[in-house]
């Protein structure tokens, strides 16, 4: 749940990047951190293993400016993607306002995407949240790999696998080159802020 401070007029919004291991959640945040450096006052926090895999989460606070006199502070988190870390993934989801599901477009990752999305559904239920109600954006990451001869799934297939029932906004993207990273972020921020406004009215 977002936290609203009426005294200092600050709204804190928690957005979590979720997805299977090595799908590019941290890479998304790293790109945002580089690209929007001017709006970010602090360093990105990464809790990772020696092998650069996310151990707990990455955290990037981000100032979005004002809406109706309120400062909007966006807090971006990632979860650890590896299967064994579900307990930690669940902890990071506590109090979430919006989710970006990052899917890996590589052909061989097809099943892992579906499993991860199902687990997101279950993990949200544990907090009495519904994947069908929470602001959600899906990103089909790594589309640039096609140019390097790596077999990737057509977007239509990914969409059918992951978004046929949810019907949420989705983007093809390449976190490493930055393609559609900002578009994904903008979409989830606007959906989340609108959803918070609705809750308050």
């Amino acid at each position, binding site marked *: 749940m977002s936290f609203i*401070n009426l005294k200092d007029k600050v709204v804190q919004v*928690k957005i979590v990047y979720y997805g299977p291991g090595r799908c590019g959640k941290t890479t998304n945040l790293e790109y945002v951190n580089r690209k929007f450096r001017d709006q970010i006052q602090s360093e990105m926090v990464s809790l990772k293993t020696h092998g650069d895999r996310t151990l707990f989460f990455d955290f990037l606070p981000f100032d979005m400016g004002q809406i109706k006199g309120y400062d909007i502070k966006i807090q971006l988190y990632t979860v650890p993607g590896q299967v064994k870390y579900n*307990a930690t993934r669940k*902890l990071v989801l506590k*109090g979430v306002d919006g989710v970006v599901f990052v899917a890996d477009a590589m052909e061989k990752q097809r099943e892992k995407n579906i499993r991860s999305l199902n687990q997101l559904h279950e993990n949200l239920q544990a907090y009495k949240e519904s994947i069908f109600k929470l602001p959600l954006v899906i990103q089909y990451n790594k589309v640039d790999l096609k140019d390097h001869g790596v077999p990737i799934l057509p977007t239509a297939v990914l969409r059918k696998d992951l978004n046929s029932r949810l019907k949420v906004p989705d983007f093809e993207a390449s976190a490493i080159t930055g393609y559609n990273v900002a578009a994904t972020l903008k979409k989830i921020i606007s959906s989340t802020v609108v959803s918070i406004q609705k809750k308050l009215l």
Partner: protein
Amino acid sequence: MNYGIVSQEQLEQIDTILAGKLIKLGVDCVIIIDMAGNIITAKDNGESKYDVYSFAALAAGNFATVDAMAKLVGEAEFSLLFHKGKESNIHFSKIDDELLLISMFGKDISLGFLRLNVVEAIEQIRKVWEANRD
């Protein structure tokens, strides 16, 4: 649960408690966060330059981890945590199931004295907070 919004009046009351009980004692910085990593309020002595937002995210994660460890050894919770450094120390104490009080202080304050004041501050904050739920 009536979380999410706290009135200006309540925040002012809480800030007064923090200033009177902890900042006055010589604590560098006090933060109240919720378990999702949001900052409810932060007060400092005017000199500390901590990045409180990153701190809140890490502290919530840290406390959640310790909570999970408590369950593994059959405890309902570990309600406080203390990290000791050479120059600065951090003390975490649970206010209730959702809120956490974090004090950062230097080597000039004794832990025992701090803990006494933290307990008193928490009692007073709970009263203000409960008024929110009624």
